């Protein structure tokens, strides 16, 4: 049986109730950490486990914690990033809805490691109903002595507060999130300084994704060595993948990193294959920001090796033939979906969500949206495709935050892998704009 960490007990009992959560050994890592480990030892354990940030970038969590400025004299903060707004991603919602105490437990141990006495959960405003679930869980944890003053009778104290956003994808970017938490517009800050030195209210701060923090209790309970045996190579542990689009069984699955993509899509244990007897055409495997892959490059790398759900395998081949694991938002497209329309849709998203600070991102996303709409509605010409390529190239790497890159990559990869489909829209506008039109010219890549 594949190892499960987050979803092992979900479904067996209502884990939002602390009594049930405790029955399954809940909160034991808090006692273990506070009674037997120094904060430095917790950081070292997490570092050795190989746990990497589950928010998208995949940076070593223990390493990030070790950068926290301990000498500033200012209080340190832990902030949980529950903004989850990357299209295709809905795993944090699932975790908070069905296993909120696991997040709190992870936050307590992590905050202890960082010597933070205050922690915030920044949750997207659209998840309003989860605030209630989280605040009830916090109250229960308080009542049992896992939160508040002198946790379990030890000299360590912690309060966790929930803070709602109000509809802005950019507030998932950690420095925009901190601005927003301070009651401002969500404009990303120029880095450096990084939040570890200058974060919330100018104090040293660690921002971690929900899933990252929720993995910490298991690591402390079972040891970093046990965690590192799950997964493959530098992709250790399990990952929540939120599958959506044209598969039979959409939903949130916990996988051991290293599961072949083909098995994930076609096995009954996971997505159960394509919905409605259609064929697999393309996939955006890590949330809307990562490059789209055509079916043949999704299932196998350019070298012909099976593509695995790991940071390394999904990135194999670079952006030429690879993509990224990203947030685990796994969007599957069947052979009737239009890649031009999809690219236009995503680009509209990025234009809408650009904070507007950098001209390449603010103007470029708008230009790309207009050109894509022109092509999609049959009014484009061949030069437009090259123009699109040119604009995305000039956004990438030239902005304050990675949203600019995130807007460029879907466009670049769509043109790279589906250029013929863009050209078909230009050369056959009447056919391409018919309702329900399906491009059949690239069936080579359809599996």
């Amino acid at each position: 049986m594949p190892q499960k960490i987050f979803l092992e007990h979900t479904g067996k009992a209502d884990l939002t109730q602390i009594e049930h959560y405790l029955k399954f050994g809940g909160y034991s890592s808090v006692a273990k950490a506070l009674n037997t480990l120094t904060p430095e030892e917790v950081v070292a354990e997490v570092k050795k486990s190989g746990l990497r940030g589950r928010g998208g970038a995949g940076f070593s969590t223990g390493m990030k914690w070790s950068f926290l400025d301990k000498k500033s004299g200012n209080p340190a903060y832990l902030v949980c990033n529950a903004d989850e707004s990357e299209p295709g991603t809905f795993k944090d919602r699932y975790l908070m809805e069905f296993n909120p105490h696991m997040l709190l437990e992870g936050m307590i141990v992590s905050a202890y490691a960082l010597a933070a006495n205050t922690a915030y959960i920044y949750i997207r405003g659209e998840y309003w109903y989860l605030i209630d679930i989280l605040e009830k869980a916090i109250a229960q944890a308080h009542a049992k002595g896992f939160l508040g003053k002198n946790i379990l009778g030890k000299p360590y104290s912690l309060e966790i507060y929930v803070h709602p956003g109000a509809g802005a994808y950019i507030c998932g970017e950690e420095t925009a999130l901190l601005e927003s938490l301070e009651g401002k517009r969500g404009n990303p800050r120029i880095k450096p300084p990084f939040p570890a030195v200058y974060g919330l209210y100018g104090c040293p701060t660690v921002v971690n994704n929900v899933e990252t923090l929720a993995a910490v209790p298991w690591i402390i309970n079972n040891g970093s060595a046990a965690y590192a045996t799950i997964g493959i190579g530098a992709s250790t542990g399990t990952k929540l993948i939120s599958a959506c689009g044209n598969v039979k069984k959409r939903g949130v699955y916990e996988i051991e990193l290293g599961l072949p993509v083909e098995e994930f899509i076609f096995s009954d244990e996971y997505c159960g294959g394509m919905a409605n007897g259609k064929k697999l055409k393309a996939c955006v495997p890590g949330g809307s920001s990562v490059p789209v892959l055509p079916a043949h490059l999704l299932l196998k790398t350019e070298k012909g090796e099976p593509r695995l759900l790991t940071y390394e395998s999904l990135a194999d081949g670079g952006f030429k033939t690879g993509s990224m694991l990203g947030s685990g938002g796994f969007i599957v497209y069947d052979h009737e979906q239009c890649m031009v329309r999809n690219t236009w849709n995503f680009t509209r998203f990025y234009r809408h969500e650009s904070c507007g600070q950098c001209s390449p991102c603010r103007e470029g996303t708008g230009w790309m949206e207009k050109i894509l709409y022109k092509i999609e509605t049959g009014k484009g010409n061949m030069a437009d495709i090259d123009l699109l390529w040119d604009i995305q190239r000039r956004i990438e790497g030239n902005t304050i935050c990675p949203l600019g890159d995130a807007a460029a990559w879907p466009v670049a990869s769509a043109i790279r892998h589906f250029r013929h489909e863009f050209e078909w829209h230009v050369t056959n506008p009447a056919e391409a704009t018919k309702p329900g039109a399906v491009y059949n010219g690239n069936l080579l890549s359809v599996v």
Partner: protein
Amino acid sequence: MNPFSEKTMEQIAAIIKKYPEGKHKSALLPVLHLAQRERNGYLSVETMNEVAAMLNLEPVEVYEVATFYSMFNLQPVGRFVLEVCRTSPCCIVGGEQIMDYLKQKLSISEGETTPDGLFTIKPMECLGSCGTGPVLQILEKFYENLTEAKIDEIIADCKQQHAVLN
């Protein structure tokens, strides 16, 4: 004089306590959410000024924030704001057809309100519900796996709720 109801004022007092001394500006987003709920679903300039005075902020500090976040409405809206996801993962499982059906059923376009003041269609970007799309939200409630029949039901329910409340 308290600008908001007693219950809201209590909630606001509790919210401000979550942040360190002198950092009450952090309360702005949660307070604007409460203010919008109490004031017919939108933030008028007057409401924003009241929030500014209450939190000891310059009015512009409130305006610049309210205009940044898509959950805040700056114009009057219908009694039920139907926030419909328009992003790709929903669109490729029937989201576009659902949006078309809704527009046709209510005879309004995106961003508009029905003449009786009951419904506003507000297009939204990904609501974190892609696994159960197409999806729409009314306040905090999600309506998932939408079909035309479900849309009919939702609209009928809203109308009934309205009739009962009036």
